[in-house]
């Protein structure tokens, strides 16, 4: 139920993001009329009102969906890629390599990503959207790597892996064909929750004026623009805010639902193959 509902909401968001240019009658970046159409409360012509440059907020929120969702999805994809590679290397190789990787991850965990992001954004003054994606992705793979390392480590003790190794399957092939399918549930759950987390992270960064650069706008940028006028122009905060919460909520709910579904299947599936092996850990930390 939750699964279907959250997929429905996300599908709506996807449609809105893809079709933004056709759904919106106004440009998200151009001023309409600085004298008569500035800071208008919601009306029929402008359901979400207009901002201080007389831009239509609905158009900005719809176009913002593109930026926010694309940045979050791409960054998470990158973090999954890095995390899986490093985590799987640790799990498959084991021994000294694994210890080194795990030690490194422990250290990396202690450096708060938001602080590094802020520092980089401040020192370079204005990052392009692409480098923002690279940075966020490059700073958020640690927990994926740790989970993948745990999971592959425990998979390596399973009979089917031993069987594959006994028949002479090489490591890379073992990883791709035998281990990776078992990692998919973990990656799907973690990735979905990760997108939720990254939407908030990017929004926070853009809100502080250090993320997406104008004239492009993500939901965080719109909120940052409106924050100083929150007393007089509530619509600049409330509408993009609702968009963020809805999107984050939908991704979180989807992640939860996927986890429940996979967990049920895993427990059922684990019983007949190897009752002694613990079902893989599917509970990634819901941290932001």
């Amino acid at each position, binding site marked *: 139920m939750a699964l279907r509902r959250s997929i429905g909401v996300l599908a709506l968001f996807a449609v809105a993001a893809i079709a933004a240019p056709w759904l919106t009658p106004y440009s998200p970046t151009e001023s309409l009329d600085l004298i008569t159409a500035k800071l208008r409360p919601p009306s029929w012509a402008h359901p979400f009102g207009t901002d201080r440059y007389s831009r239509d907020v609905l158009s900005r929120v719809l176009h913002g969906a593109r930026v926010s969702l694309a940045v979050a999805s791409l960054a998470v994809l990158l973090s999954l890629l890095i995390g899986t590679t490093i985590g799987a290397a640790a799990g498959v190789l084991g021994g000294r390599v694994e210890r080194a990787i795990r030690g490194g991850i422990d250290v990396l965990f*202690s*450096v*708060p990503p*938001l*602080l590094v992001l802020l520092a980089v954004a*401040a*020192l370079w003054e204005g990052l392009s959207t692409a480098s923002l994606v690279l940075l966020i992705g490059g700073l958020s793979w640690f927990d994926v790597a740790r989970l993948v390392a745990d999971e592959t480590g425990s998979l390596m003790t399973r009979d089917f892996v031993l069987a594959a190794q006994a028949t002479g399957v090489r490591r890379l092939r073992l990883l791709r064909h035998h281990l990776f399918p078992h990692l998919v549930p973990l990656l799907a759950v973690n990735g979905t929750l990760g997108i939720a987390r990254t939407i908030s992270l990017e929004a926070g960064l853009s809100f502080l004026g*250090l993320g997406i650069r104008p004239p492009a706008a993500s939901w965080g940028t719109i909120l940052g623009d409106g*924050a100083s006028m929150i007393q007089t122009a509530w619509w600049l905060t409330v509408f993009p805010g609702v968009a963020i919460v809805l999107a984050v909520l939908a991704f979180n709910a989807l992640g*939860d639902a996927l986890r429940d579904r996979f967990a049920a299947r895993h427990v059922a599936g684990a019983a007949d193959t190897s009752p002694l092996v613990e079902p893989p850990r599917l509970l990634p930390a819901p941290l932001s």
Partner: protein
Amino acid sequence: MLSRLAESVVVVFFAATIAFILLQLAPGDQATALGETVSPEVRAAYRERLGLDQPVPTQYLRWMSAIAQGDFGWSSGQQRPVAALLRDAIPNTLLLMGSALVLSLSCGVVLGAWQGAHANTRRDTAISSALLLLYSIPEFLLALLLLLLFAFTLRWFPSGGITDDLHRFLSPPQQWLDRVKHLALPLLSLSVVTIAIFARYQRAAMRDAMTQPFIQTARAKGLSEAQVRRHARRAAVLPVITVTGLLFPSLLGGAVVVEQIFAWPGMGWVLMRGIGSRDTAVVAAAVIVGSAMTALGALLAEIAREVVDPRVRHT
């Protein structure tokens, strides 16, 4: 335990190195931050005074030894040593984060323990959905909404700062009230997400604990349901401690935005002002101190775990 302590030192070392690399890679330095109006000679002199004309390895050694001695350089924006800035700001951040941790731990644990003991009842599901919603509101957005509602519309709480302008002229009890009133909204903005996180973990831990054999034993002994739950609660506290240790980076990140919105003069606020005035020394110091705080939090969580769980000791 010792290895854990060593790890914290490694973290600070690593963070200091990252900060150094960032400063080296960044376009421009403290001398260029003086602006275009300054003549090249002055700029060169400034570089020489700060040691920016030295080769990179020398700069790195100087940087590390200065940080080891608690010297974080000179804030060009504030015209004060960064260490002095930090000394003013860190207590405020610790106050905010500490009270957020206490509030969210107590609320989250109580809520989650109740949910875990009544797992899959209708009320449990309702609370879970509500928590998922709260968990999905970014701190800065919550802060803005609270500001809009309680500071601007209802005018129950002040909109920012740590004390009122007239704080010095108030009587001691009124001063307390003033402080609490200023703390309320930032605290709430920071705590709501963490309450939800703690409750989620506590619920899962409690639900799992309730299925353990020792609970059956307790029931079979004829203990009352309340006593049985007390048994379970002790076992269910562990995952929450682990999560607490992992939570510091996100709590710190939340504190940065919340401080910025409520003009709370802590680390985040200092950092954002430093960013605004191209004050690179402050930015670097914030990365180092933030990492040190995170490492310290993880260390404390580890100690707490050893105290609570005898199984973790001596491993």
